[in-house]
């Protein structure tokens, strides 16, 4: 039975190297060609690059987070699919490089607070509020933090991956116990950096605004998209003849994860919205006004689509047990969630940067597909590096016989 795992070594490269690579090339041209249509197309391009990179880096990070959670909770059911989240983190180094480059070249286009005149007392543009935040929001510290986040994330993801692969070769439980300790350390790091990176990369776009829920909000969005990505990959791999031992019981658990955390995201969304709506203090409510009636109602449809596609749809469709066990339903919902949370990040970043001139055109779709292509290349490269089933994991038998 375990020998089947070795056969599965020829991972999902075929479909993704072909499909992902093709998309990548085609869309690269499209994005470049479409660039000339918009007025401030470089700004629009930089914001799009930033947004997509934050989204995909988050999904990649969730891969390691998922694995770490499974380790510290001594979970057995997920062993068969654990190589997929592991491989997702292969995008992290690429994401780090892109993040750094986009910041270096496009920081003024994305972040209002990077302009020097805001901090000059003699300047007519002097902004005492932003100047008061300069202890945290300054380019040097921002770059140090960015390097620190990616450094730590990449280190832990590679460390866990190394233990996991060594386990395949050596057997025994030493690697397993070590992985639990690494995971526990990573979760502490993740708890802090997931919040602070959300402040840095997303919240600081709306420099004047602040929300104590924001770290959670971005985490919830990343987490549910990451879970959707894992589930979708499992299904696609299974339908292409890999992961034969994964059955509807594993899918059921993944479906429960997606279902539960789409509700969790809504809960966080509403907790943030309700307080600002109720208090109705101008400097707080402006964030939602920009996204509803403000900006000439430009974002209104996305605001409601966001709730519909990320809450109502998964909630109603995945409610029954049968839906969570059927690949077609899970596929529908996970694709909807991945698109929906892309829109969610769009809604977080666009009003503060592009305002009324934002749109969803060739640049947006082109950049998104380009990033999807790069992500899939890194992801599938990771998948091919090791057996799809961790053959010497102490819980692999339990996972094979998983039954709910």
């Amino acid at each position, binding site marked *: 039975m375990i020998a089947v795992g070795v056969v599965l070594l020829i991972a999902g490269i075929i479909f993704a190297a072909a499909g992902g690579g093709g998309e990548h090339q085609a869309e690269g041209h499209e994005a470049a060609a479409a660039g000339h249509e918009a007025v401030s197309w470089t700004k629009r391009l930089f914001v799009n690059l930033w947004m997509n990179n934050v989204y995909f880096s988050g999904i990649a990070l969730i891969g390691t987070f998922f694995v770490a959670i499974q380790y510290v909770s001594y979970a057995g059911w997920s062993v068969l699919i654990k190589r997929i989240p592991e491989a997702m983190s292969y995008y992290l180094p690429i994401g780090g490089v892109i993040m750094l480059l986009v910041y270096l070249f496009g920081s003024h286009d994305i972040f209002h607070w990077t302009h020097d005149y805001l901090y000059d007392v003699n300047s007519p543009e002097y902004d005492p509020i932003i100047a008061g935040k300069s202890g945290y929001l300054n380019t040097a510290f921002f770059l140090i933090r960015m390097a620190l986040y990616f450094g730590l994330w990449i280190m832990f993801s590679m460390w866990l991956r190394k233990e996991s692969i060594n386990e395949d070769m050596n057997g025994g439980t030493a690697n397993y116990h070590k992985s639990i300790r690494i995971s526990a350390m990573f979760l502490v790091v993740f708890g802090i950096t997931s919040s602070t990176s959300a402040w840095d990369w997303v919240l600081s776009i709306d420099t004047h605004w602040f929300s104590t829920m924001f770290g959670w909000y971005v985490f919830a969005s990343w987490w549910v998209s990451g879970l959707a990505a894992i589930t979708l990959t499992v299904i696609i791999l299974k339908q292409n003849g890999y992961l034969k031992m994964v059955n509807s019981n594993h899918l059921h658990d993944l479906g429960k994860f997606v279902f539960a955390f789409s509700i969790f995201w809504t809960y966080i969304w509403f907790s943030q919205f309700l307080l600002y709506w*109720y208090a109705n203090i101008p400097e707080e409510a402006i964030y939602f006004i920009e996204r509803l009636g403000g900006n000439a109602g430009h974002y209104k449809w996305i605001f409601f689509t966001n709730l519909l596609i990320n809450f109502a749809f998964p909630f109603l469709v995945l*409610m029954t047990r049968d839906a969570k066990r059927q690949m077609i339903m899970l596929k529908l919902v996970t694709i909807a969630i991945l698109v929906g949370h892309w829109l969610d990040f769009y809604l977080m970043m666009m009003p503060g940067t592009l305002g009324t001139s934002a749109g969803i055109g060739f640049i947006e779709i082109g950049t998104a597909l380009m990033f999807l292509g790069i992500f899939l290349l890194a992801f599938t490269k990771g998948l091919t590096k090791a057996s799809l089933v961790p053959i010497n994991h102490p819980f692999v038998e339990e996972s094979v016989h998983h*039954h709910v």
Partner: protein
Amino acid sequence: MNKKFVLGIYDDEDVLLHAIENIRAAGTKIYEVFSPYPIHGIDDVLGIKRSRLPIVAFFGGLTGMSFALWMQIWMLGFDWPMIIGGKPHISLPAFIPVTFELTVLFSAFSMVIAFFIVSNLKPSLRVNMLDKRSTDDKFVMAIEVKDGVTDLSALNELLRSNGAVEVNEKEVVK
């Protein structure tokens, strides 16, 4: 009216699971199986259908949601309109927490009540213990005996050939 049962006593859970399969395949209806602890997969083997409790939960929740929305909209919007925090009389975001709570409450209560009714749990319930050892270290399979229909010796043979360590008869007074 009294009921008569033939009890097959087993001391191994795997033997029991196979016995259930074989005995059902032989066309004998099993009244109930008693076990000291939950046995994984026994529901499928016994042919017990999945609980329909989730459906009750869904409609309970739907009732709770409708009730909560109706209550707040009618009370705060029509019966006794009040301005709270400068918001419109009917302002949906403020109603969401109450709606959520009542949805959960109705859903939970409807499930508990439906469970009590369906499984006939009531204060006056008297439980007939067919064999006390089923709370300790034995598994007990009960098959109802119908006078003149059931062939006792054949049943005895069927149970024993499927690994029963003991076969008893028991009469229960209703």
